[in-house]
């Protein structure tokens, strides 16, 4: 089946070459970071995690969201998702790979990475994150491949693959829960120290992930004649709508507790994000942009007429992804460090090398996604013709 990735149009190859170019630029920029140290990033003594770890967090959500296709099909026999689950599984593979690379580029001593395995430490949530992420990667690679294989041979899915699929459903929930636990168990980081961090993560993931997948499907419909059944689009956009409503609801719950209790530690991060504090306000325009984009997308999604119109749906999905990305892929990780433990305000902005390296990692993910989707579409075209 692999050979299907090698047969494509000029546009396909141009896209692949462009991604390879980005990967190359990202790789050389990483070599620069590797030789100079993480000082080339915007990270600091006070804000010791930034853009890389925020992308990890966001992409774990994207990876987990594949379950929103798998679950309705395998547990509720929602037939229109039948041809789409493979895309969810392959997107999970690409997303988890990116997660792992974002951890790798964030390490001060990447050569010692295997110490996590050589000295396994179950009391560290990072150990469990590594465990669930690599497990999820393995599950989705095997499942995706076997589903495709069955389609190629026009055969039934083997029973053991079905068992793996059932395992992968709670496993998807676990990867984002464990990722939330990275943050939610740290004393003194008030923005993160909340029991609803995991549900918040899951809600934003189940909104943003399927939104990204739906956008990719629309692109594939244009460039690759990919058939997306209207009913599937409909169901997915309803899932996205509910998840986004929950996401906003959870955020408002956080704000209620912070503002009504009036406890300084709980208030500070929200004040800094939405109003600025101690003369620092770098995050303020972003946060309000996130709010506006989020509200805009929700209005488009909630009104059935607009949700069902492909044009307004696309606008809703794009703004939803932007809104959740600002909130989770930029603000949540960084603002958790503001103010610092000594109540001082230091700000953070990613540097150019940091952004280029991140672009390189995203390019690797997109390349993997492109190749896997190309193979899936190739197999499908062949079986359709036969």
């Amino acid at each position, binding site marked *: 089946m692999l050979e299907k990735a090698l047969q494509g149009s000029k546009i396909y190859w141009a896209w692949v070459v462009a991604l390879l170019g980005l990967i190359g630029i990202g790789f050389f920029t990483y070599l620069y970071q590797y030789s100079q140290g993480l*000082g080339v990033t915007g*990270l600091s*003594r006070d804000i010791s995690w930034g853009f890389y770890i925020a992308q990890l967090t966001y992409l774990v959500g994207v990876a987990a969201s594949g379950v929103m296709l798998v679950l309705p099909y395998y547990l509720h026999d929602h037939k229109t998702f039948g041809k789409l689950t493979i895309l969810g599984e392959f997107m999970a593979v690409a997303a988890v790979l990116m997660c792992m690379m974002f951890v790798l580029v964030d390490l*001060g001593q990447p050569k*010692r*990475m295997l110490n996590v395995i050589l000295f396994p430490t179950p009391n560290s949530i990072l150990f469990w994150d590594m465990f669930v992420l690599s497990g999820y990667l393995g599950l989705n690679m095997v499942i995706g491949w076997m589903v495709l294989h069955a389609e190629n041979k026009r055969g039934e899915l083997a029973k053991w693959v079905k068992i793996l699929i059932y395992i992968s459903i709670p496993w998807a929930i676990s990867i984002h829960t464990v990722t939330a636990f990275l943050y939610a168990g740290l*004393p003194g*980081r008030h923005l993160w120290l909340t029991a609803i961090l995991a549900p918040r993560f899951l809600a934003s993931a189940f909104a943003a992930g399927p939104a990204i997948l739906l956008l990719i499907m629309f692109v594939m419909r244009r460039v690759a004649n990919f058939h997306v059944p209207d009913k599937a689009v409909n169901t997915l956009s309803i899932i996205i709508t509910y998840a986004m409503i929950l996401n906003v609801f959870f955020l408002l719950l956080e704000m209620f507790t912070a503002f009504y209790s009036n406890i300084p530690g709980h208030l500070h991060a929200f004040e800094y994000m939405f109003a600025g504090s101690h003369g620092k306000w770098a995050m303020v325009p972003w946060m309000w942009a996130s709010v506006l984009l989020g509200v805009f997308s929700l209005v488009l999604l909630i009104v059935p007429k607009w949700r069902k119109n492909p044009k307004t749906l696309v606008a809703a999905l794009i703004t939803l992804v932007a809104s959740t990305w600002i909130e989770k892929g930029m603000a949540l990780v960084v603002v958790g460090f503001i103010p610092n*433990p000594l109540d001082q305000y*230091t700000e953070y902005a990613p540097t150019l090398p940091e952004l280029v390296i991140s672009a390189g990692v995203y390019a690797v993910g997109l390349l993997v996604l492109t190749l896997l989707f190309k193979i899936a579409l190739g197999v499908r075209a062949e079986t359709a013709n036969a």
Partner: protein
Amino acid sequence: MDSARRNFLKIAGLAAAGLTLKPAGNAFGMGVIVPEPDGAAKFDDALSAKRWAMVVDTRKFTAQTRKAAVAACNKAHNVPEIKNPKHAIKWIWEANFKNAFPDLAGPHVPPQVEREPMLVFCNHCDSPPCVRVCPTKATFKRKDGIVTMDFHRCIGCRYCMAACPYGSRSFNYVDPRLHLGQTSVDFPTRTKGVVEKCNFCAERLARGQMPACVEACRNNELIFGDLADPNSSVNQALRQNFTLVRKPELGTQPQVYYII
């Protein structure tokens, strides 16, 4: 590699255990090192305790003694002097009361307390969150309560920095060796990409010396001793004075006590 080095140290220690030579000056050279039951190597006249703790008598400090304590630590541990505050390495430093105790600083702090900074450093918590989160056990708590690091095992994930509620940890964003003046041979320099922090001068205790900051203070501004010994100087100070620890509500059980 690292565990091989450790084993070598242990074997070297065992080989030397039967001899009664006086300790050489260098803990990281091959002096006379006697292995403890828990495997940690030390000299035969090392200072030991069941639970090391520190009392900071902020009333006694002057600007001069604070500077002297910080300078002594920086010198003893090859702490680089990095101008960019974002990349600064700090083991022990000066902080205002409202920064050291943000939850306690009400609007009416006596002017002297408000004005005079105090020394802050690692609290060597009894329940250290940094140790809890470290994915490689590169940071660990010793039996005598000292929370310390294996610079060779640290992968530089900085999870410990997110976990420490006192800002006591620093990461080598740049090569620290480029920012060193005279290098002390009694403590290793570090490489870029690892975390570091105050270690209660474990390497000096092993040579029978008090911590560098304590030694730099001549007037009992810093009192260091064994919490398990009722007659120790720390216990005397704790009995005679009302002390505070930083952020006790977080359950980390800090073992650095402040007399305000």
